[in-house]
């Protein structure tokens, strides 16, 4: 896919929508940042590369009164589908531009290893930063390994050949997931206590999540119901995160935005991946795969199922 294909497609979509959600390059950060294109001139700044990590679907429920175009990777498309299934976004006011995605880079990890704003170049199977380089498999987001969703499940137009990309190989076996899997229950308890001891309850996880739509009415921040205390400590933070996680049962598409957004690097996806695995095992269901699907835990019918007992 060339940038010209992308820009031309965005311009075409702009003829029928008010705004297109995409990415542009930040001069300071040297990587992609989300951008809104209202005019063809603005669209000339559009890019797509492997630093386009953000899931722009999060903005769709916030733009309820506009016709919106959105540039979507395969994984982002699943969030869009789930939002439509849940009635948060109406299909007829959005136009989805699919892009061929070879996997996106864990930009935060790159910055933490090499420094913020260092130029990141992804070429020839390697990621180059400040004269150093590493195989791209080593610095991709976890979700990108063996990705099954590269072809967007919802798409009105494609910028480039979305079927042309091959999924990156599985991750190497030295990461936090393998260490976590090997832990006993007691060790996991201690692990989470340690992790949540640095949570500051900024709720970046919640705000970056396209499906966490309670937002301004979130039970983690209310006094009634008083499910979590207002103290910032490991116990309250873990409770708050457990509420968030269970609320996403059967709804999480695994986009990894919560973990990417976390400013203190808590591996939140360990919780969600396990829950997603259980949902798939119990219901043979992956969220956001089809507009016809019903989310298992949203199928309760008070009339059919006998009401609350």
């Amino acid at each position, binding site marked *: 896919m060339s940038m010209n294909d992308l820009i031309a497609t965005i311009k075409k979509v702009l003829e029928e929508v008010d705004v297109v959600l995409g990415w542009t390059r930040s001069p300071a950060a040297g990587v992609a940042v989300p951008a809104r294109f209202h005019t063809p001139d603005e669209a000339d700044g559009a890019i797509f590369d492997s630093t386009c990590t953000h899931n722009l679907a999060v903005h769709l429920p916030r733009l309820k009164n506009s016709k919106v175009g959105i540039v979507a990777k395969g994984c982002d498309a699943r969030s869009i589908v789930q939002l439509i299934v849940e009635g948060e976004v109406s299909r007829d006011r959005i136009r989805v531009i699919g892009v061929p995605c070879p996997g996106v880079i864990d930009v935060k990890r790159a910055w933490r290893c090499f420094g913020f704003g260092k130029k990141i170049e992804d070429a020839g199977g390697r990621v180059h930063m400040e004269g150093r380089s590493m195989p791209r498999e080593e610095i991709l987001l976890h979700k990108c390994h063996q990705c099954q969703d590269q072809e967007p499940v919802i798409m009105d137009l494609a910028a480039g050949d979305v079927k042309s990309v091959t999924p990156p190989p599985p991750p190497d076996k030295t990461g936090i997931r393998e260490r976590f899997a090997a832990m006993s229950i007691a060790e996991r308890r201690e692990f989470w206590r340690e992790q949540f001891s640095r949570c500051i309850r900024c709720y*970046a996880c919640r705000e970056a999540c396209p499906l966490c739509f309670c937002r301004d009415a979130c039970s983690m921040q209310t006094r009634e119901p008083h499910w979590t205390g207002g103290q910032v400590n490991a116990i309250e933070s873990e409770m708050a995160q457990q509420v968030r996680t269970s609320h996403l049962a059967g709804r999480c598409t695994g986009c990894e935005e919560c973990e990417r957004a976390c400013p203190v690097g808590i591996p939140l996806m360990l919780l969600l991946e396990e829950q997603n695995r259980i949902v798939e095992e119990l219901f043979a269901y992956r969220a956001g795969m089809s507009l016809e699907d019903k989310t298992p835990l949203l199928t309760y019918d008070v009339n059919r199922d006998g009401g609350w007992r």
Partner: protein
Amino acid sequence: MRFIAEDAIPRLLEHLAGGGRTVWAPRVARDSVNTVLFAPWIAGEPVETGAYTHLSAKATLLPPTERLFGFSYLQTAGEERIELEPEEPEENHVLFGARVCDARALAALDALFFPAGGGFNDPGYAGRRSGLTVITLACTTCDSACFCSSFGKGPAETDGSDLILYPVANGFLAEPVTDAGSELVRLDLFQDSPLDKPELAVTDRIETAGLREKFIDLFSDIDLWRQVSEKCLSCGFCAYACPACHCFNIFDEMSGDREGERCRSWDSCMFYSYTLETSGHNPRPEIAHRYRNRIGHKFSYFPANRGEILCTGCGRCIRGCPAGVDIREVIRAVQER
């Protein structure tokens, strides 16, 4: 000037921790990928003298949650009364490895919680602040998010520090700023050195001249605020990472129905609930209203009320923003309007 070798830093930290003092220093969080945070130093654990911390050092003075007092309802001879259990102020903290942008934020925090010219002293803050020693690491390099050169003497600022360490080969030149700093450099961990101070970083800049009035003029330009905040997701990260943001919420947490504690926690004006009134009305319903307040408080209201800008150019809100918001772009858009 005095010099301390890099391998003498652990001994300096041990000295600082003597007498039961808590030494806050930049450390890599356990089980994390290079997440560097200020945390109480534990003997034997390494400190990061070359890394950026992802959150500021303000938790040293303003903990994310602080117990103000405990209370219990007591019944004696048929009469109910409330007994309060005051919190003893903590003292004697040391902040090691702060940056100039952390240290200079103390002036803004002091202006509110512990004003030099008198006024209300917040007991918790004042206790921690009056016993605080600040040892600052000067910056010889910076990254593209840094913009402290916009304020005062920039990387050469000494306000807020007791002692400044300048990185040189194999160690640090030490320049005392206060008596507490002078006392430290007399320790035999330090030697005299003929070296000159290294050249300091030169960062990006924003123009703050006239911003206080400009903001007031543009307050009602809601299109501008919608445009500059369109990427923002309205989480509280920027406020919580900021060395100068200090808004808080006060609430009671009960354990059972007879006793509880009154606490103060960090709060952020980016949250919808921050201004939500009991009636259900919210004067800042949109992200644009909340982001406008963020800019106004930092660059207009607080400077007008307390004489300090609530931004030190540390760049943490830029590096960590999950949505890619850059406060410098916002200030430039406001200045160009």
